[in-house]
Protein backbone atom coordinates (compact mmCIF):
# COMPACT_ATOMS: atom_id res chain seq x y z
CA UNK A 1 0.00 0.00 0.00
CA UNK A 2 2.87 2.31 0.93
CA UNK A 3 4.47 1.47 -2.40
CA UNK A 4 1.26 2.29 -4.30
CA UNK A 5 1.04 5.69 -2.59
CA UNK A 6 4.72 6.37 -3.25
CA UNK A 7 4.42 5.47 -6.94
CA UNK A 8 1.20 7.50 -7.34
CA UNK A 9 2.68 10.58 -5.66
CA UNK A 10 5.96 10.25 -7.56
CA UNK A 11 4.10 10.98 -10.77
CA UNK A 12 3.00 14.36 -9.42
CA UNK A 13 6.64 15.13 -8.66
CA UNK A 14 8.08 13.75 -11.90
CA UNK A 15 5.56 15.29 -14.27
CA UNK A 16 4.25 18.33 -12.39
CA UNK A 17 3.15 20.15 -15.54
CA UNK A 18 1.15 17.26 -16.95
CA UNK A 19 -0.32 16.54 -13.52
CA UNK A 20 -1.34 20.18 -13.11
CA UNK A 21 -2.81 20.12 -16.61
CA UNK A 22 -4.88 17.01 -15.79
CA UNK A 23 -6.16 18.51 -12.54
CA UNK A 24 -6.99 21.80 -14.31
CA UNK A 25 -8.81 20.00 -17.13
CA UNK A 26 -10.78 17.91 -14.66
CA UNK A 27 -11.50 21.03 -12.58
CA UNK A 28 -12.80 23.04 -15.55
CA UNK A 29 -14.85 20.14 -16.92
CA UNK A 30 -16.47 19.74 -13.51
CA UNK A 31 -16.81 23.52 -13.16
CA UNK A 32 -18.96 23.58 -16.31
CA UNK A 33 -21.11 20.85 -14.76
CA UNK A 34 -21.06 22.87 -11.54
CA UNK A 35 -22.34 26.01 -13.28
CA UNK A 36 -25.06 24.02 -14.96
CA UNK A 37 -25.83 22.45 -11.59
CA UNK A 38 -26.15 25.91 -10.02
CA UNK A 39 -28.66 26.93 -12.68
CA UNK A 40 -30.56 23.68 -12.13
CA UNK A 41 -30.52 24.04 -8.32
CA UNK A 42 -31.79 27.63 -8.48
CA UNK A 43 -34.42 26.84 -11.09
CA UNK A 44 -35.61 23.93 -8.98
CA UNK A 45 -35.79 26.17 -5.94
CA UNK A 46 -37.77 28.80 -7.87
CA UNK A 47 -40.20 26.16 -9.10
CA UNK A 48 -40.54 24.82 -5.56
CA UNK A 49 -41.36 28.28 -4.26
CA UNK A 50 -44.00 28.73 -6.96
CA UNK A 51 -45.29 25.25 -6.16
CA UNK A 52 -45.82 26.26 -2.53
CA UNK A 53 -48.49 28.62 -3.76
CA UNK A 54 -50.58 25.80 -5.22
CA UNK A 55 -53.69 25.88 -3.07
CA UNK A 56 -57.16 24.41 -3.35
CA UNK A 57 -59.89 26.74 -2.09
CA UNK A 58 -63.32 25.43 -1.14
CA UNK A 59 -66.00 28.19 -0.96
CA UNK A 60 -68.67 27.46 1.58
CA UNK A 61 -72.44 27.95 1.33
CA UNK A 62 -73.66 30.95 3.34
CA UNK A 63 -74.71 30.10 6.87
CA UNK A 64 -72.63 26.95 7.26
CA UNK A 65 -72.26 26.42 11.04
CA UNK A 66 -68.73 26.83 12.35
CA UNK A 67 -68.99 23.47 14.19
CA UNK A 68 -69.60 21.67 10.89
CA UNK A 69 -66.63 23.41 9.33
CA UNK A 70 -64.34 22.67 12.28
CA UNK A 71 -65.35 19.00 12.24
CA UNK A 72 -64.83 18.69 8.48
CA UNK A 73 -61.45 20.43 8.60
CA UNK A 74 -60.11 17.54 10.70
CA UNK A 75 -61.21 15.14 7.95
CA UNK A 76 -59.65 17.37 5.27
CA UNK A 77 -56.34 17.63 7.13
CA UNK A 78 -56.29 13.84 7.27
CA UNK A 79 -56.21 13.63 3.43
CA UNK A 80 -52.80 12.15 2.44
CA UNK A 81 -52.15 15.04 0.02
CA UNK A 82 -52.98 17.81 2.47
CA UNK A 83 -50.38 19.69 4.46
CA UNK A 84 -52.72 22.19 6.15
CA UNK A 85 -56.24 23.57 5.94
CA UNK A 86 -57.15 27.10 6.94
CA UNK A 87 -60.65 28.39 7.58
CA UNK A 88 -61.30 31.94 6.32
CA UNK A 89 -64.52 33.55 7.59
CA UNK A 90 -66.58 35.98 5.49
CA UNK A 91 -65.22 38.90 7.55
CA UNK A 92 -61.64 37.78 7.16
CA UNK A 93 -62.20 37.42 3.41
CA UNK A 94 -63.50 40.98 3.20
CA UNK A 95 -60.64 42.35 5.32
CA UNK A 96 -58.15 40.59 3.10
CA UNK A 97 -59.85 41.95 -0.04
CA UNK A 98 -59.71 45.45 1.35
CA UNK A 99 -56.03 45.08 2.14
CA UNK A 100 -55.05 43.47 -1.13
CA UNK A 101 -57.36 45.15 -3.63
CA UNK A 102 -56.62 48.77 -2.84
CA UNK A 103 -57.93 49.92 -6.23
CA UNK A 104 -61.42 48.72 -5.19
CA UNK A 105 -61.11 50.35 -1.79
CA UNK A 106 -64.06 52.71 -2.30
CA UNK A 107 -66.36 50.03 -3.67
CA UNK A 108 -65.52 47.68 -0.81
CA UNK A 109 -66.09 50.47 1.77
CA UNK A 110 -69.57 51.20 0.46
CA UNK A 111 -70.88 47.63 0.65
CA UNK A 112 -74.01 47.22 2.69
CA UNK A 113 -73.50 43.57 3.27
CA UNK A 114 -70.46 41.31 2.75
CA UNK A 115 -70.76 39.46 -0.58
CA UNK A 116 -67.70 37.29 0.00
CA UNK A 117 -68.20 33.64 1.09
CA UNK A 118 -66.28 31.88 3.83
CA UNK A 119 -63.73 29.40 2.55
CA UNK A 120 -61.31 26.64 3.46
CA UNK A 121 -57.84 27.12 1.98
CA UNK A 122 -56.11 23.79 1.54
CA UNK A 123 -52.30 23.63 1.12
CA UNK A 124 -50.85 20.48 -0.42
CA UNK A 125 -47.78 18.56 0.67
CA UNK A 126 -44.65 18.78 -1.52
CA UNK A 127 -44.90 16.09 -4.19
CA UNK A 128 -48.67 16.58 -4.48
CA UNK A 129 -48.56 20.13 -5.83
CA UNK A 130 -49.57 19.23 -9.37
CA UNK A 131 -52.78 19.46 -11.39
CA UNK A 132 -53.75 15.79 -10.96
CA UNK A 133 -53.50 15.74 -7.18
CA UNK A 134 -55.05 19.20 -6.81
CA UNK A 135 -57.95 18.03 -8.96
CA UNK A 136 -58.44 14.87 -6.85
CA UNK A 137 -58.49 16.93 -3.64
CA UNK A 138 -60.92 19.39 -5.26
CA UNK A 139 -63.27 16.53 -6.21
CA UNK A 140 -63.23 15.19 -2.65
CA UNK A 141 -63.91 18.68 -1.26
CA UNK A 142 -66.92 19.02 -3.56
CA UNK A 143 -68.37 15.95 -1.82
CA UNK A 144 -68.92 17.96 1.37
CA UNK A 145 -72.51 19.21 1.43
CA UNK A 146 -71.64 22.72 2.66
CA UNK A 147 -69.13 23.33 -0.16
CA UNK A 148 -70.52 25.56 -2.86
CA UNK A 149 -67.56 25.67 -5.25
CA UNK A 150 -63.89 24.58 -5.42
CA UNK A 151 -61.11 26.45 -7.29
CA UNK A 152 -57.42 25.76 -7.62
CA UNK A 153 -56.30 27.70 -10.67
CA UNK A 154 -56.18 24.63 -12.94
CA UNK A 155 -54.61 26.56 -15.85
CA UNK A 156 -51.57 27.82 -14.03
CA UNK A 157 -51.03 24.62 -12.08
CA UNK A 158 -51.00 22.78 -15.41
CA UNK A 159 -48.52 25.33 -16.75
CA UNK A 160 -46.37 24.78 -13.67
CA UNK A 161 -46.49 21.01 -14.28
CA UNK A 162 -45.38 21.59 -17.85
CA UNK A 163 -42.54 23.87 -16.75
CA UNK A 164 -41.38 21.26 -14.26
CA UNK A 165 -41.39 18.55 -16.93
CA UNK A 166 -39.48 20.75 -19.41
CA UNK A 167 -36.94 21.73 -16.73
CA UNK A 168 -36.45 18.08 -15.75
CA UNK A 169 -36.04 16.93 -19.39
CA UNK A 170 -33.68 19.77 -20.36
CA UNK A 171 -31.72 19.24 -17.12
CA UNK A 172 -31.40 15.53 -17.77
CA UNK A 173 -30.33 15.89 -21.42
CA UNK A 174 -27.98 18.86 -20.99
CA UNK A 175 -26.62 17.50 -17.70
CA UNK A 176 -25.94 14.09 -19.29
CA UNK A 177 -24.29 15.78 -22.30
CA UNK A 178 -22.03 17.84 -20.02
CA UNK A 179 -21.21 14.76 -17.97
CA UNK A 180 -20.34 12.73 -21.10
CA UNK A 181 -18.14 15.54 -22.45
CA UNK A 182 -16.42 15.79 -19.06
CA UNK A 183 -15.83 12.03 -18.99
CA UNK A 184 -14.31 12.14 -22.51
CA UNK A 185 -12.06 15.13 -21.77
CA UNK A 186 -10.93 13.74 -18.43
CA UNK A 187 -10.41 10.28 -19.94
CA UNK A 188 -8.24 11.76 -22.71
CA UNK A 189 -6.16 13.73 -20.21
CA UNK A 190 -5.55 10.66 -18.11
CA UNK A 191 -4.72 8.67 -21.23
CA UNK A 192 -1.98 11.21 -21.96
CA UNK A 193 -0.47 10.49 -18.55
CA UNK A 194 -0.55 6.77 -19.25
CA UNK A 195 1.05 7.23 -22.69
CA UNK A 196 3.73 9.47 -21.20
CA UNK A 197 4.67 6.57 -18.94
CA UNK A 198 4.34 3.81 -21.54
CA UNK A 199 8.09 3.13 -21.58
CA UNK A 200 8.06 2.76 -17.82
CA UNK A 201 5.07 0.41 -17.99
CA UNK A 202 6.91 -1.71 -20.56
CA UNK A 203 9.96 -1.92 -18.29
CA UNK A 204 7.77 -2.77 -15.30
CA UNK A 205 6.30 -5.67 -17.20
CA UNK A 206 9.72 -6.89 -18.32
CA UNK A 207 10.93 -7.15 -14.74
CA UNK A 208 7.86 -9.20 -13.82
CA UNK A 209 5.29 -6.70 -12.55
CA UNK A 210 1.73 -8.00 -12.64
CA UNK A 211 -1.00 -5.96 -14.36
CA UNK A 212 -2.52 -5.27 -10.96
CA UNK A 213 0.76 -3.92 -9.59
CA UNK A 214 1.11 -1.55 -12.56
CA UNK A 215 -2.54 -0.52 -12.49
CA UNK A 216 -2.97 0.34 -8.81
CA UNK A 217 -0.77 3.48 -8.64
CA UNK A 218 -2.49 4.76 -11.79
CA UNK A 219 -5.92 4.23 -10.24
CA UNK A 220 -4.91 6.02 -7.06
CA UNK A 221 -3.34 8.82 -9.05
CA UNK A 222 -6.47 9.15 -11.24
CA UNK A 223 -8.72 9.24 -8.17
CA UNK A 224 -6.49 11.87 -6.51
CA UNK A 225 -6.55 14.02 -9.63
CA UNK A 226 -10.34 13.66 -9.81
CA UNK A 227 -10.64 14.58 -6.13
CA UNK A 228 -8.40 17.65 -6.53
CA UNK A 229 -10.22 18.64 -9.73
CA UNK A 230 -13.56 18.29 -7.91
CA UNK A 231 -12.38 20.47 -5.02
CA UNK A 232 -11.13 23.15 -7.41
CA UNK A 233 -14.41 22.97 -9.38
CA UNK A 234 -16.44 23.50 -6.18
CA UNK A 235 -14.21 26.44 -5.24
CA UNK A 236 -14.67 27.96 -8.71
CA UNK A 237 -18.45 27.38 -8.58
CA UNK A 238 -18.57 29.04 -5.16
CA UNK A 239 -16.65 32.03 -6.51
CA UNK A 240 -19.04 32.19 -9.49
CA UNK A 241 -22.03 32.01 -7.13
CA UNK A 242 -20.61 34.85 -5.02
CA UNK A 243 -20.11 36.95 -8.17
CA UNK A 244 -23.66 36.23 -9.36
CA UNK A 245 -25.02 37.19 -5.93
CA UNK A 246 -22.97 40.36 -5.90
CA UNK A 247 -23.71 41.65 -9.38
CA UNK A 248 -26.71 39.80 -10.82
CA UNK A 249 -29.35 38.01 -8.80
CA UNK A 250 -29.62 36.23 -5.51
CA UNK A 251 -28.63 32.64 -6.18
CA UNK A 252 -28.40 29.63 -3.92
CA UNK A 253 -25.27 27.44 -3.69
CA UNK A 254 -25.14 23.65 -3.57
CA UNK A 255 -26.08 21.84 -0.41
CA UNK A 256 -23.22 20.00 1.32
CA UNK A 257 -24.46 16.70 -0.18
CA UNK A 258 -24.58 18.15 -3.70
CA UNK A 259 -21.04 19.58 -3.38
CA UNK A 260 -19.78 16.22 -2.08
CA UNK A 261 -21.61 14.61 -5.01
CA UNK A 262 -19.65 16.71 -7.53
CA UNK A 263 -16.34 15.94 -5.79
CA UNK A 264 -17.29 12.26 -5.66
CA UNK A 265 -18.22 12.36 -9.35
CA UNK A 266 -14.78 13.83 -10.17
CA UNK A 267 -13.06 11.15 -8.11
CA UNK A 268 -15.06 8.42 -9.81
CA UNK A 269 -14.32 9.78 -13.30
CA UNK A 270 -10.62 9.97 -12.40
CA UNK A 271 -10.70 6.39 -11.17
CA UNK A 272 -12.76 5.12 -14.11
CA UNK A 273 -10.72 7.08 -16.69
CA UNK A 274 -7.45 5.72 -15.30
CA UNK A 275 -8.80 2.21 -15.11
CA UNK A 276 -9.91 2.14 -18.76
CA UNK A 277 -6.81 3.96 -20.09
CA UNK A 278 -4.28 1.84 -18.27
CA UNK A 279 -6.28 -1.33 -18.93
CA UNK A 280 -6.39 -0.61 -22.66
CA UNK A 281 -2.69 0.22 -22.65
CA UNK A 282 -1.76 -2.94 -20.74
CA UNK A 283 -3.64 -5.10 -23.22
CA UNK A 284 -1.56 -3.61 -26.03
CA UNK A 285 1.94 -3.93 -24.51
Amino acid sequence: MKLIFREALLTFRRAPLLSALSVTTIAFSLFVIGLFGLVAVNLQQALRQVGERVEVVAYLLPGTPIETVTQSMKDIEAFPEVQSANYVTEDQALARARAELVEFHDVLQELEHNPLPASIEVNLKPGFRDADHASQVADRLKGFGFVDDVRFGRDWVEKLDWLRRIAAAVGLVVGAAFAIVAVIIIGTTIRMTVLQRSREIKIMRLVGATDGFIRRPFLLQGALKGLLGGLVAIALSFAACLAINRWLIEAAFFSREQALGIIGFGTLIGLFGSSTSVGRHLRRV
Partner: protein
Amino acid sequence: MIKFTNVFKAFPKGGLGLKDVSFHVAKGEFVFLTGHSGAGKSTVLKLIYADEPVTSGEVRVSGFNVAEISRREIPKLRRRLGIVFQDFRLLEDRTAEENVAFALEVTGAKSATIPARVMRVLTQVGLAAKARAYPPELSGGEQQRVAIARALVNEPTVLLADEPTGNLDDRATRGVFQLLRDINASGTAVLMATHDLDLVRQAPYRVIELRDGAVVFDSAVDEAKDQAAGT
Protein backbone atom coordinates in the same frame (compact mmCIF):
# COMPACT_ATOMS: atom_id res chain seq x y z
CA MET B 1 16.28 -24.98 -18.67
CA ILE B 2 15.36 -23.60 -22.15
CA LYS B 3 14.07 -25.96 -24.81
CA PHE B 4 12.82 -25.02 -28.28
CA THR B 5 11.19 -27.83 -30.27
CA ASN B 6 10.22 -27.19 -33.91
CA VAL B 7 9.34 -23.60 -33.20
CA PHE B 8 7.81 -21.42 -35.89
CA LYS B 9 7.06 -17.74 -35.47
CA ALA B 10 4.97 -15.84 -38.00
CA PHE B 11 4.31 -12.13 -37.59
CA PRO B 12 0.75 -10.81 -37.90
CA LYS B 13 1.75 -8.38 -40.65
CA GLY B 14 3.35 -11.16 -42.67
CA GLY B 15 6.79 -12.64 -42.69
CA LEU B 16 8.23 -15.62 -40.92
CA GLY B 17 10.40 -14.78 -37.92
CA LEU B 18 11.53 -18.27 -37.02
CA LYS B 19 11.47 -21.47 -39.05
CA ASP B 20 11.56 -24.83 -37.32
CA VAL B 21 13.97 -23.79 -34.57
CA SER B 22 15.04 -26.47 -32.10
CA PHE B 23 17.74 -26.23 -29.43
CA HIS B 24 18.28 -26.87 -25.76
CA VAL B 25 20.17 -24.74 -23.26
CA ALA B 26 21.23 -26.68 -20.15
CA LYS B 27 21.46 -25.39 -16.60
CA GLY B 28 24.54 -23.22 -16.08
CA GLU B 29 25.43 -23.13 -19.79
CA PHE B 30 26.71 -20.03 -21.66
CA VAL B 31 25.36 -19.84 -25.19
CA PHE B 32 25.96 -17.24 -27.90
CA LEU B 33 23.11 -16.62 -30.29
CA THR B 34 24.62 -15.10 -33.40
CA GLY B 35 23.51 -14.00 -36.84
CA HIS B 36 23.01 -10.87 -38.87
CA SER B 37 20.44 -8.24 -38.05
CA GLY B 38 16.99 -9.65 -38.74
CA ALA B 39 18.20 -13.25 -38.46
CA GLY B 40 15.79 -13.88 -35.58
CA LYS B 41 18.02 -13.55 -32.49
CA SER B 42 15.77 -11.07 -30.69
CA THR B 43 12.70 -13.06 -31.72
CA VAL B 44 14.12 -16.15 -29.98
CA LEU B 45 14.64 -14.12 -26.81
CA LYS B 46 11.18 -12.54 -27.04
CA LEU B 47 9.58 -15.97 -27.28
CA ILE B 48 11.53 -17.04 -24.18
CA TYR B 49 10.27 -14.14 -22.05
CA ALA B 50 6.80 -14.35 -23.62
CA ASP B 51 6.84 -10.93 -25.24
CA GLU B 52 5.67 -12.53 -28.49
CA PRO B 53 3.34 -15.51 -28.83
CA VAL B 54 4.67 -18.74 -30.29
CA THR B 55 3.01 -19.59 -33.64
CA SER B 56 3.71 -23.32 -33.47
CA GLY B 57 6.06 -25.70 -31.75
CA GLU B 58 7.03 -25.94 -28.10
CA VAL B 59 9.02 -23.54 -25.95
CA ARG B 60 9.83 -24.64 -22.40
CA VAL B 61 11.57 -22.28 -19.99
CA SER B 62 12.27 -23.09 -16.32
CA GLY B 63 9.25 -25.38 -16.11
CA PHE B 64 6.88 -23.06 -18.01
CA ASN B 65 5.27 -24.11 -21.28
CA VAL B 66 5.62 -20.68 -22.88
CA ALA B 67 3.64 -21.56 -26.02
CA GLU B 68 0.53 -21.97 -23.86
CA ILE B 69 1.32 -19.55 -21.06
CA SER B 70 -1.57 -17.47 -19.69
CA ARG B 71 -1.31 -13.71 -19.23
CA ARG B 72 -1.34 -14.15 -15.46
CA GLU B 73 1.60 -16.54 -15.57
CA ILE B 74 3.87 -14.24 -17.62
CA PRO B 75 5.08 -12.12 -14.63
CA LYS B 76 5.97 -15.34 -12.77
CA LEU B 77 8.02 -16.53 -15.76
CA ARG B 78 9.82 -13.19 -16.06
CA ARG B 79 10.75 -13.19 -12.37
CA ARG B 80 12.65 -16.42 -13.03
CA LEU B 81 14.60 -14.72 -15.83
CA GLY B 82 17.01 -11.81 -15.94
CA ILE B 83 16.75 -9.74 -19.11
CA VAL B 84 19.34 -7.25 -20.39
CA PHE B 85 18.92 -5.09 -23.50
CA GLN B 86 21.19 -3.15 -25.83
CA ASP B 87 19.47 0.10 -24.84
CA PHE B 88 19.63 -0.71 -21.09
CA ARG B 89 15.96 0.20 -20.50
CA LEU B 90 16.54 1.93 -17.19
CA LEU B 91 14.07 4.34 -15.62
CA GLU B 92 15.91 7.59 -16.07
CA ASP B 93 14.27 9.44 -13.22
CA ARG B 94 15.32 6.84 -10.66
CA THR B 95 18.78 6.29 -9.24
CA ALA B 96 20.78 3.13 -9.96
CA GLU B 97 19.72 1.59 -6.65
CA GLU B 98 16.08 2.57 -7.18
CA ASN B 99 16.14 0.93 -10.61
CA VAL B 100 17.45 -2.28 -9.08
CA ALA B 101 15.15 -2.09 -6.06
CA PHE B 102 12.19 -1.63 -8.37
CA ALA B 103 12.70 -5.14 -9.82
CA LEU B 104 12.43 -6.51 -6.28
CA GLU B 105 9.47 -4.37 -5.29
CA VAL B 106 7.35 -5.63 -8.19
CA THR B 107 7.81 -9.17 -6.93
CA GLY B 108 6.46 -8.17 -3.51
CA ALA B 109 9.80 -8.73 -1.76
CA LYS B 110 9.89 -7.68 1.92
CA SER B 111 10.88 -4.02 1.97
CA ALA B 112 13.28 -4.55 4.90
CA THR B 113 15.39 -6.96 2.83
CA ILE B 114 15.53 -4.80 -0.31
CA PRO B 115 18.40 -2.33 0.48
CA ALA B 116 20.84 -5.10 1.42
CA ARG B 117 19.98 -7.20 -1.62
CA VAL B 118 20.31 -4.18 -3.91
CA MET B 119 23.68 -3.20 -2.47
CA ARG B 120 24.96 -6.75 -2.73
CA VAL B 121 24.14 -6.98 -6.41
CA LEU B 122 25.45 -3.45 -7.17
CA THR B 123 28.70 -4.46 -5.47
CA GLN B 124 28.75 -7.60 -7.64
CA VAL B 125 28.63 -5.48 -10.82
CA GLY B 126 31.14 -2.99 -9.41
CA LEU B 127 28.80 -0.03 -9.03
CA ALA B 128 28.25 0.25 -5.28
CA ALA B 129 29.92 3.65 -5.28
CA LYS B 130 27.44 4.99 -7.85
CA ALA B 131 24.27 3.65 -6.27
CA ARG B 132 22.81 7.13 -5.92
CA ALA B 133 23.61 8.22 -9.49
CA TYR B 134 20.88 8.67 -12.09
CA PRO B 135 21.30 6.84 -15.43
CA PRO B 136 22.16 10.01 -17.42
CA GLU B 137 25.04 10.58 -15.00
CA LEU B 138 26.53 7.15 -15.82
CA SER B 139 28.56 5.97 -18.82
CA GLY B 140 27.05 3.41 -21.22
CA GLY B 141 29.04 0.60 -19.63
CA GLU B 142 27.92 1.65 -16.16
CA GLN B 143 24.29 1.86 -17.25
CA GLN B 144 24.53 -1.65 -18.65
CA ARG B 145 25.98 -2.81 -15.33
CA VAL B 146 22.96 -1.31 -13.54
CA ALA B 147 20.73 -3.17 -15.99
CA ILE B 148 22.63 -6.39 -15.27
CA ALA B 149 22.34 -5.76 -11.54
CA ARG B 150 18.58 -5.32 -11.99
CA ALA B 151 18.45 -8.58 -13.96
CA LEU B 152 20.41 -10.42 -11.26
CA VAL B 153 18.67 -9.12 -8.14
CA ASN B 154 15.90 -11.72 -8.33
CA GLU B 155 18.52 -14.47 -8.59
CA PRO B 156 17.38 -15.77 -11.97
CA THR B 157 18.32 -19.19 -13.26
CA VAL B 158 18.76 -17.78 -16.78
CA LEU B 159 20.10 -14.43 -17.92
CA LEU B 160 18.95 -13.33 -21.37
CA ALA B 161 21.11 -10.65 -22.95
CA ASP B 162 20.01 -9.05 -26.23
CA GLU B 163 23.08 -7.39 -27.80
CA PRO B 164 24.22 -6.19 -24.33
CA THR B 165 27.43 -4.70 -25.74
CA GLY B 166 25.88 -3.25 -28.90
CA ASN B 167 26.03 0.34 -27.63
CA LEU B 168 29.36 0.12 -25.81
CA ASP B 169 32.96 0.93 -26.69
CA ASP B 170 35.63 -1.81 -26.64
CA ARG B 171 36.69 -1.26 -23.08
CA ALA B 172 33.13 -1.24 -21.73
CA THR B 173 32.31 -4.25 -23.92
CA ARG B 174 35.15 -6.25 -22.39
CA GLY B 175 34.06 -5.26 -18.89
CA VAL B 176 30.42 -6.18 -19.43
CA PHE B 177 31.32 -9.44 -21.14
CA GLN B 178 33.62 -10.40 -18.27
CA LEU B 179 30.80 -9.64 -15.85
CA LEU B 180 28.48 -11.96 -17.78
CA ARG B 181 31.15 -14.67 -17.71
CA ASP B 182 31.51 -14.25 -13.94
CA ILE B 183 27.76 -14.50 -13.51
CA ASN B 184 27.77 -17.68 -15.57
CA ALA B 185 30.65 -19.06 -13.53
CA SER B 186 28.52 -18.70 -10.42
CA GLY B 187 25.91 -21.03 -11.95
CA THR B 188 23.48 -18.84 -13.91
CA ALA B 189 22.82 -19.90 -17.49
CA VAL B 190 23.44 -17.06 -19.99
CA LEU B 191 21.92 -16.80 -23.44
CA MET B 192 23.54 -13.88 -25.19
CA ALA B 193 22.44 -12.61 -28.60
CA THR B 194 25.24 -10.79 -30.39
CA HIS B 195 26.60 -10.12 -33.83
CA ASP B 196 30.04 -9.26 -32.41
CA LEU B 197 32.10 -12.20 -33.71
CA ASP B 198 35.26 -10.97 -31.99
CA LEU B 199 33.52 -11.43 -28.69
CA VAL B 200 32.31 -14.89 -29.69
CA ARG B 201 35.85 -15.95 -30.63
CA GLN B 202 37.22 -14.78 -27.26
CA ALA B 203 35.45 -17.47 -25.25
CA PRO B 204 35.03 -21.21 -25.67
CA TYR B 205 31.25 -21.14 -25.38
CA ARG B 206 28.59 -22.82 -27.42
CA VAL B 207 27.41 -20.86 -30.48
CA ILE B 208 24.02 -21.11 -32.16
CA GLU B 209 23.86 -19.23 -35.45
CA LEU B 210 20.61 -18.12 -37.01
CA ARG B 211 20.05 -17.10 -40.61
CA ASP B 212 16.67 -15.98 -41.95
CA GLY B 213 14.98 -17.37 -38.87
CA ALA B 214 16.49 -20.84 -39.03
CA VAL B 215 19.33 -22.43 -37.02
CA VAL B 216 22.18 -22.93 -39.48
CA PHE B 217 24.87 -23.83 -36.97
CA ASP B 218 24.92 -25.12 -33.42
CA SER B 219 28.43 -25.78 -32.15
CA ALA B 220 27.16 -28.33 -29.61
CA VAL B 221 25.49 -30.41 -32.34
CA ASP B 222 27.93 -29.82 -35.20
CA GLU B 223 31.07 -30.43 -33.11
CA ALA B 224 29.54 -33.63 -31.76
CA LYS B 225 28.83 -34.71 -35.34
CA ASP B 226 32.40 -33.86 -36.36
CA GLN B 227 33.78 -35.83 -33.46
CA ALA B 228 31.54 -38.78 -34.32
CA ALA B 229 32.69 -38.61 -37.97
CA GLY B 230 36.34 -38.40 -36.87
CA THR B 231 36.25 -41.54 -34.73
